[in-house]
């Protein structure tokens, strides 16, 4: 069920009410980032940073291991009289690999946690929803939500300031 709201402020208040009503399968859609919306929606802190840290550290470790293997095991060549495993020389590449790993972690984490890539969503069947990237603000509540009921949810959304409400079908 898709409800349209006139401005970010009403949307924010509406989100807080949807959150307090105990819905779980729902989302808010805006044309631009709205500060404080995540709190109003009761979202927890994103786990993307954990992906970044873990993949960043793994990248750094992999960079170090690769250099250790090439310089000390596979092709042990003496360079300017330094030991084969000269770790200070490996740090810049280790750093770069760490940055690369962190960046990949950020993108992968964002995709995984956001359920992407995804080529279609039922909401795109709605004509009104095409304005979400322009000037409209929406809340969508999924039918699979345990608290969802066609009539009461409609009345609920109406009661929290929705401008227009429509049912969007899967096909």
């Amino acid at each position, binding site marked *: 069920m898709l409800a349209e709201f006139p401005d970010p402020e009403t949307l924010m208040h509406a989100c807080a009410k949807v959150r307090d009503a105990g819905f779980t399968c729902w989302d808010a859609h805006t044309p631009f980032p709205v500060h404080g919306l995540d709190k109003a929606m009761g979202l927890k802190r994103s786990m993307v940073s954990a992906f970044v840290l873990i993949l960043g550290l793994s990248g750094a470790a992999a960079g170090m291991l690769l250099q250790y293997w090439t310089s000390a095991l596979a092709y042990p060549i003496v360079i300017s*009289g330094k030991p084969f495993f000269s770790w200070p*020389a490996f740090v810049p590449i280790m750093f770069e690999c760490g940055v690369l790993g962190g960046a990949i972690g950020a993108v992968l984490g964002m995709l995984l946690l956001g359920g992407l890539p995804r080529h279609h969503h039922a909401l795109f069947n709605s004509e009104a929803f095409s304005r979400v990237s322009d000037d409209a603000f929406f809340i969508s509540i999924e039918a699979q939500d345990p608290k969802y009921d066609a009539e009461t949810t409609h009345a609920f959304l109406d009661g929290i300031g929705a401008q227009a409400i429509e049912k969007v079908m899967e096909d």
Partner: protein
Amino acid sequence: MEHHVTLDSQQITLPTSGLWPKLPAVGGVIGVVGLGLAFLLQGEDPQRLAFSYLTGFMFWVTIALGGLFFVILHYLARSGWSVVVRRLAEKVAATLPLFAILFLPIPLLFMHDLFHWSDAAAVAHDPLLQHKAPYLNIAFFNLRAVIYFAVWIGLMIYFNRASQKQDASADFGITARLNKRSAPCMILFGLTLNFAAVDWMMTLDPHWFSTIFGVYTFAGCVIAIFATLILMSLRLQRRGVLEGVVTGEHYHDMGKMLFGFVVFWAYIGFSQFMLIWYANIPEETIWFDHRWHNGWQPVSILLAVGHFAIPFFWLISQPAKRSRFAMTAGALWLLFMHYVDIYWLVMPTPVPSGDHHAMVAQAFQPAATDIACWLGIGGLFVAYLGHLLGQGSLVPKADPRLAESLTFESV
């Protein structure tokens, strides 16, 4: 979104109870006793006092210089979020005239103890020092110090006056003008800081040079000021001042800057080390050699671990940057590590020793004068800072971007 905000005077003036109003007296006593003790304790070793004094001086002056940097950067970046803490940084920078006075003992008393190049007899036997003499001579050294302090104090007065004028006039033109002028001011600041770092710390070993030395010192300045701002705001808030003004969002951002510059410091420090280690030229590696022997090895390792690895993991998470305890501990620890860093730069300097006056690097041997000088200069700094904090508002209350800063959200 420009609209006028009014803050309670209790929110933005120094508390009248507790330690804050007593800072000038307490700091003054500590300062005088500390410096007095330093001179009494020097005993047989006046040279040690010179190095202790320089270490203490550099530790505290880098905080004040960091304050000046923060203010110029605020305008250069046309920053909005940092309005609420800018006045604190302005007050820290306003202690620079005190440091101009505290600098005096260095050329007047400690010149020959500190700077080998200032000894005419040594220069006469040293072709390299003769070659550097057009730059490294006492008259030019003093002239440069005058220029540095003139530039710093001039910049500080320029920015602070304009900011205080805005408290009364609420004129947006002042912000616009400072935004525009901040770029040449930043260039001036960068050049003077760089040369001052070279003059006052790098030329302790006049044969050695590193082109990144000034940047390294600068990284320390920035860490020091962010740690200081975090601690000052947190302590003031315990008295209810700045409550609702400096929020978790600001601590989050200051924490990010602190974290970022911890990494920057490590990046610069390692860049300096790696190039010298890789090229392996004796005249360059000797500097690190001095910092790896005679008891300095643990200090070098402590710097790598304590100035980088520990704060890196301590400050990396979002909840840590918003936790009062984590930020207090992190800021205090980094100020301590900043002192270790300065100590590590200044102390292992070769000085003439023994009967033949051979140049031998000083061993790691903490002395009572180290603490006395740190306390003495710090006491005077805190006293003067306390006096300045008591004057006027602690927040630029009519800044056109104050409303933006108050409602700032860090993401």
